[in-house]
């Protein structure tokens, strides 16, 4: 346990925690667009700026990848931080001024529009990298990655082909802060990142279970018996009831 202050309030944190998680846990409000507690901090959006004073020296830094250190004092808001965050927001807004999620964040920071020219590609992607990290770190599929540098950077599957390692689990689309990762699903197929998957159905009720690749990956990772991967949760719950009935009433007619 180590102790430091946030906006004058003394807080405690575990070694290895970052400033952002400690601040959020203590109810401080810090805007973020590239942070997700499930994956490693990356520091792409630069909205989570705070001012850290350590041994008398102050500096502006991102809080999501700054370690909690004993004795530091952290300021989460002041005029300078607010102004810098608004400028960061203006820069991010250039990437897609019409995106509702970005507009909501802009409203929250008091930015009504960006004074800058819009980026050439306005697809709503702000290159926060959450999809890439979720896919690599959490799912373990590693289907997408950053390509290109500088103003030409973007996220893509290898060679822009349908990714072989994508399992179609949709986790990337779920975490996207601007909700621009497109996918479609009909009765039998699901399409994402240009790859179309045939869906596996529950053998009892026909409900969608997922893609075969996704289920195979889950099976590999969990080591669960194959029988887990052919029945939906609802039907399994019903089977549980039958099993409980057998326990309660024994062999007699239920």
């Amino acid at each position, binding site marked *: 346990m180590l102790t430091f202050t946030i906006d004058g309030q003394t807080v405690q944190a575990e070694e290895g925690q970052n400033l952002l998680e400690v601040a959020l846990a203590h109810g401080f409000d810090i805007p973020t667009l590239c942070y997700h507690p499930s994956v490693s901090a990356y520091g792409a959006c630069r909205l989570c700026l705070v001012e850290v004073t350590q041994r008398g020296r102050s500096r502006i830094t991102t809080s999501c990848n700054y370690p909690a250190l004993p004795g530091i004092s952290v300021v989460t808001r002041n005029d300078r931080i607010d102004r810098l965050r608004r400028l960061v927001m203006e820069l991010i807004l250039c990437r897609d001024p019409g995106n509702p999620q970005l507009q909501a964040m802009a409203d929250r920071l008091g930015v009504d529009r960006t004074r800058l020219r819009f980026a050439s590609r306005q697809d709503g992607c702000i290159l926060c990298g959450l999809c890439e990290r979720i896919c690599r770190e959490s799912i373990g599929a590693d289907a997408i990655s950053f390509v290109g540098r500088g103003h030409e950077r973007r996220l893509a599957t290898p060679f822009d082909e349908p990714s072989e390692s994508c399992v179609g689990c949709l986790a990337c689309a779920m975490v996207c802060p601007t909700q621009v990762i497109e996918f479609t699903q009909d009765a039998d197929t699901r399409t994402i990142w240009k790859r179309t998957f045939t869906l596996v159905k529950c053998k009892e009720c026909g409900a969608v279970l*997922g893609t075969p690749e996704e289920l195979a990956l*889950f099976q590999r990772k969990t080591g669960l018996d194959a029988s887990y*991967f052919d029945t939906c*949760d609802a039907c399994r719950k019903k089977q549980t*009831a039958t099993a409980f009935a057998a326990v*309660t009433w024994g062999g007699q007619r*239920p």
Partner: protein
Amino acid sequence: MKRLFITPDRCIGCRACELACSFAHAVALTSPALSRIRVYPVASDRFVPVACLQCEEAACVKVCPTQALVRNPETLAIEVDHTRCVKCMMCTVACPFGNIHLDLRVDQIVKCDVCGGDPACARFCPSLALEWAERPTVGPVPKPEPGRVVLPFLVP
């Protein structure tokens, strides 16, 4: 430590628990279909309520790639941390009892959380088939007649 005890023998199939649960967890809409506890008829007069058992070595917790399933030390219930969950559905596959679901209507993974320590289902169960207690009531409990049950929260 209190736990949720289920005694199917006492269940009269009134489904008050399902309604109570869906009210307790209502987000935008309420419907028994949203309930985390379900009552299954196994014979014309026999019913089994099924809800999460909060397993000791829970499969859902083990497989979650984002550590979004966490046991609440006070209630012992396993809860979903929606800020961490990425809805990959590994938990729904891994639960051997089918007790954790993706609810498309609220777009969230849902499971029994014992209502934070005072489960609505148990509160409204008229027959002690569901009990939130240190240990379950033993012995026969007189079953109320199904048709005569008055659900407290439906009283005008």
